[in-house]
Structure formats: structure tokens, C-alpha cells
């Protein structure tokens, strides 16, 4: 009896979560099996798995998967690499450290749309400052957002500018809380500083790096604001990631069934990546 009573206390929260989390996902799954062209004014009709089968031969879908992967790997890779290096650099005492640290954290506080608008302007071939700087140091100007080959690197640079500090913050706070004994004994044993970093520091902060990477990977896979504001997926579809394709399918083309199908694919990918990262992390911790 007592046992049952305690369940009733979590019931309101459970019901609320069911309504706002479980229902949309299940309804979305259900809609993904329908054709629903809202603009025609007619309701949804059953289509079975045909939406999923149609995706297999949809070039734009595969393009969006490719863009999502390249963007995520590029952004995550550069952010983790630079973020960890910066954290190692800041993990010591020097004058003005707090001020520099604060300045490094500014980008996180900025609104992504504002960041995207300003970077979009800076990348402009004719009007932007980046090409002025390139020319000043004797390099040829680049088309950046107007060039299908350069648009994703350009987006990655902007994303890295904004989110590397997050990795820095997480890893640095972890570094600062590490026990000092392993480092002291390593010194006594005669390890040089590179060896200390590779064999002691990095393994010890690895769980923190993975957590940071997890947070960033979810964000990077479903990036929307940055790309929507800077390129709207262009030129043509060169920077249209999966999330942007979902938006276009649902809210530009009003094909809600197909948009739901794509959303399920995105959901699956995000879940898979996180299960993967969680497994790595748990393996290391235990």
C-alpha cells in the first residue's frame, strides 16, 4: 500500500512528460506513415512505409545527410581539438588569466541569429571584411558562402568561433578540479610535460571531453539557426542539412507526412550518436 502511494506523487510529472514528450514523438511516428499535403486542404492519408522507401532514392535527402555529417564532424572535431588545447593552455596561473578567460566566453553569450547575420556579412565577397583581410596578407579573396565548396567550411568556422569556448569551459573546470598527486608522482618519476599531458592529463579529463562532445554533437547535428540565417541551405542545396530539409519539407512545402518521416530519421541519428558516446563514456568510467 505504502509503495503504491509513493507512485502517486510522481504521477503528475509523469502525465505531464507523457503529454509533452511522448505524445509528440508517437504522433510524429504515426504521421511519418502518411501523405499529408496541407496546402491542398485535404487531410492525411495512409501511406505505410512508402515515405521511408521514397527517401532512399531522394538525392536531396542523401545530400542533407552528407551535409549533416560533414558539418558535424568538422565542427565537432575543430571545436574539441581547439577547445582542449586552449584548456591545457589556460590550466596554469598567469597575469590577466581571468580577463582573457572572460573574453573567450563572450561568443557563447551571443544570440546565434545575430552571430549568423554578422558572419554572413563578413563573408560577403563584395562587402565583407574577411576578404579585405585575405587581400591584405596577399591571399586571393574567396567566395565563401557563394561557393558550394567553401560554404560548409565557412559555416564550420562560424560554429567553431561560437562554441569552442563551451568545450574550453567544460574541460578547463574539469582540469582545475583534478587531484595533484598523479602529476607530482609523474614529475618524481621523471616524465616530461608532453608525457604528462598524453598519459596523465588527457586520460583523466576524457570523460569531461566526451560529455562536452555529446552536448555539442546533438547541437551540431540539428543545427538550424546558423545555416538558415547565413545561407538558407544554399548555394542551391550545398549547405542544406537534415534539419533544414525538414523545415523546408514541412513549412515551405507543407508536406507534413514526409517532414515527419525526415524528423524520425533525424531523431534516430541523434539518439544513435548519443548512445554511442554514452557507451564509450561508461566503458571508461567503470
Amino acid at each position, binding site marked *: 500500500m505504502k509503495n503504491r502511494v509513493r507512485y502517486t506523487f510522481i504521477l503528475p510529472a509523469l502525465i505531464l512528460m507523457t503529454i509533452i514528450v511522448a505524445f509528440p514523438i508517437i*504522433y510524429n511516428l504515426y504521421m511519418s506513415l502518411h*501523405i*499529408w*499535403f*496541407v*496546402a*491542398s*486542404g*485535404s*487531410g*492525411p492519408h495512409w501511406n505505410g512505409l512508402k515515405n521511408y522507401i521514397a527517401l532512399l532514392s531522394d538525392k536531396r535527402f542523401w545530400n542533407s545527410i552528407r551535409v549533416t555529417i560533414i558539418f558535424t564532424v568538422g565542427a565537432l572535431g575543430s571545436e574539441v581539438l581547439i577547445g582542449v588545447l586552449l584548456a591545457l593552455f589556460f590550466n596554469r596561473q598567469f597575469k590577466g588569466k581571468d580577463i582573457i578567460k572572460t573574453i573567450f566566453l563572450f561568443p557563447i553569450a551571443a544570440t546565434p541569429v545575430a552571430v549568423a547575420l554578422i558572419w554572413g556579412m563578413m563573408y*560577403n*565577397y*563584395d*562587402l565583407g571584411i574577411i576578404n579585405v583581410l585575405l587581400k591584405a596578407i596577399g591571399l586571393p579573396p574567396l*567566395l565563401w*558562402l*557563394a*561557393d*558550394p565548396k567553401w560554404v560548409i567550411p565557412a559555416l564550420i568556422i562560424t560554429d567553431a568561433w561560437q562554441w569552442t569556448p563551451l568545450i574550453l569551459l567544460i574541460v578547463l573546470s574539469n582540469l582545475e578540479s583534478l587531484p595533484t598527486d598523479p602529476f607530482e608522482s609523474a614529475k618524481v618519476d621523471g616524465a616530461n610535460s608532453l608525457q604528462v599531458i598524453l598519459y596523465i592529463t588527457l586520460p583523466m579529463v576524457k570523460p569531461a571531453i566526451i560529455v562536452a562532445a555529446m552536448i555539442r554533437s546533438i547541437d551540431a547535428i540539428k543545427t538550424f539557426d546558423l545555416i538558415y540565417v547565413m*545561407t*538558407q*541551405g*544554399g*548555394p*542551391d*542545396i550545398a549547405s542544406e542539412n537534415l534539419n533544414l530539409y525538414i523545415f*523546408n519539407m514541412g513549412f*515551405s*512545402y*507543407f*508536406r507534413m507526412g514526409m517532414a515527419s518521416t525526415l524528423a524520425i530519421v533525424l531523431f534516430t541519428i541523434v539518439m544513435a550518436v548519443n548512445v554511442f558516446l554514452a557507451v564509450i563514456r561508461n566503458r571508461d568510467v567503470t
Partner: protein
Amino acid sequence: MRKTVFLLVLLAAVLTSPLFAGGKQESAGTKKAASAGFDWKAFEGTKIKIMVNKHPWVDIIKPKIAEFEALTGMKVELSIYPEDQFRTKRTVEMVSGTSDVDVFMLMPGNALAQYVQSGWLAPLNGLMKSKQYLWPDYDLNDIYPAALNAGVREGKNYTVPLLLETSLLAYNKDIFAKTGVTVPKTMAELESVAKKIYESSNGDTYGITLRGKKASATSQWVDFLHSFGGEWLDSNGKAAVDSPEAIAATEFYGKLLRLYGPKSAPSNSWYESISIFMQGKAAMVYDASVFKPNYENPEKSAVSGKVGYAIIPKGPAGSIPHVSNWGLTIYSGSKHKEAGWLFIQWATSKAIALQGQLAGIPSARASAWSSPEFKSKDSSPEWTNASIASYKVASPLWNPPVIPVGECRDAMGSAIVASILGQDVKAASREAAKTIDKILANSK
């Protein structure tokens, strides 16, 4: 059930709008016995509900509604929504099937196909011919035919234009004089002028700037398409963007930008494109006529006072620009169609059209353009003449006349970008046509 959920979601979106005005429907009112001949007071006591989008034109008529009410003895309920909410609210009203809206604004180029196909609009032909309800001073012939035709589907009129925009070639007179070129009259001249300016400035000044950003480009590209003799769709409703004429137009559009235009063209929409022109970095721009105030604003534009205007140069099929407009329509489920028609006539009358014209809203009525009041205030007769010339020959179609407009524009946008980048235009156009046909087949 599913439809209900959808409606609830849409409704929730609309309810968050602070401008939401829940209006009660009033019964048919005291409809006077219809006498022969036109009578403004024929629907005295009737209450009509008008739904409009927050647009400068609404600012003109809103303070005058009281005059209309005094004239007709009707009561007008005007609901104004910001554009995005307006589109959502309008769709909700229509889908619900129980709307008490009588008259609303609609941009035929964007939404007419959807609204006609769904049976949401009442044809206006009967009212337009009716001796009893057509105001003798209304003068339908004063409205530019292209503007009226934009609201026609299968021989039936659905919208009456309340303003009319077109696209114009704007050029920098200083650069033209310096380079020694004159205003291009044909597409071949357009290319040679662009080339001469680009080459004689060693690439410092672009010959021309145009939109190149995917779907946004199609609304200006379409004028090249028509002038080259191409069409969005053929007479069977199949995609025609891979016809030889259309391919030539797409090829030409891309070539102008690739060889003599800004390198950033594939990422330029109207804002970037006109900015390049306004900084004096490009000698010509082809875009909407309503950007004149931007070009001529000395605070934002380095070229103000130096801009000339012309109609699109002649292609193999002639000079065929497009017009686009907002219009007023009557809801098919309205109980006050005739009363709504009186409102439409008043709101698009010569007097109101002139007032809009003087406030900078280009009118769909020839009389407003030729009125002495406007002419004496006109700061740029060259723009005025080019606009009128454009209206006279324009096509009312700038989007394909189908429901999935955005999707078709995106498909064609890909081919335009391919052309700008110097890829195989034929293959890209075929791909676009194939995609459009597939989209149309899936839009039942």
C-alpha cells in the same frame, strides 16, 4: 481527428497573436428591397468582416472606413494581422469552413491556385457585370488588364488588385556616361553593355547584378524566361522549363552573372543584389520597381539621383516583365457577397487608388498614374514612364499557377544556380522539369 489536431495547432498559433479579434457574426441585416440601378445604401445595417494584412495600403483605407460606413450605412469590422499571422489565420478561417469573413486580401501570384482549387473564393464575374451592384463610376477598364488578369483562373475573376508592382532595369547614369554606353533595348545589347562596363573597368565595376539565390531568383528570372519565349508550364500543365527557349533564358541569365556580375551572385537575394548596385559596384540591376525609394535614398545609397529606369530589354519574344499585386477577394462562404463587393469597389476606387499613389503605393489604375496631382509630385518621371510601359505589356504570371509554388521555385532555383556556376544548363533544366512534374503529380 487528425484534421482537428491540425486545426487546434493552427488555432493555438493564431491565438497567440495579440491582434486576434474575436468577432461575432451579425445576421444578414436589413437588406433593402433591390430596386433597379445602383444604390450605395442597398445593404444599410449589414455588418461585413474584412481581414487584411498589415500593409501600407491598409494605413490609407483604415482612417477612411468611417466614410464608407457613412456612405453605405454598413458596419465594417476590419481585422489587421502582421503578414505571417495573417496567412496562418486566413488558412485557419478557410479550412474550418465556418468562417464569417466576407472579404480578405490575397496575393494571387502566391496563393490563388490553392484558394481556387480548394473552393474558398467566390467568382466576381456576376458582380462585375451586374447593373445593380456595379458602381457606374467604378470603371473596370481603368485597371491595368495584367493586374486584373492576375486574379483570373479558368476564365473567372477572383481578385481585384489594390496595388501593382513590376520589375525594372535600373542603371547608373554616371557609369553609363563614363563608359559611353546607352540604355540596352535588346537582350544582346544588355549583354554587350554589361560586358563593356565590366571589361573597361578591369572587373572593378560589375556590368549587372541580379538575384542568384535559388528560389528568390525565379521571380526576376521569369521575366527573362517570358522574354525569351519560355513558360513555367506548357498547355497540358507539364513543366516547360526545359524547352529550348527556357534553356536559352536560363543560360543567358546565368551567363550575365557569371561573366559580368558579382562573384557572390549564387548567395545574393534582393537585399544583397540591390546593395551592390546602391554602392555603385554594379552598373545595372534588374529587380522590383518598388525598390526605387532605396536607390534614391541619399543616406543609404551612393547612387541616388543618378539612377535611370527602363523596361526589360527585348528578347526573342519581346519585352515581357511581370506584375505582382495584392488583391481583394470574397470568401465563397460569405453571406454578404454583394455588400462585400461594394466594399471592394470603394476600397479600389479611383479616389483611394490616387491617394495610395501619392503615398508611394504604386496603383493598379491608369488614372492614378496620369493624374495631374501625381504628375506634379513625381520626382522621377523616368521611373513612372518605365513602370507604365511595363504594366502595359506585362504578364500576370510570375509563379507557376499551381499549389506547391515554393517547391517548384526551389526546383527551378537549382537550375539557375547551376547556370550561374557554369554547369550544364541543359541537364540542370531537365532535372528541374523532372522534379517539377514529380512535385505536381504528388500535389493532389
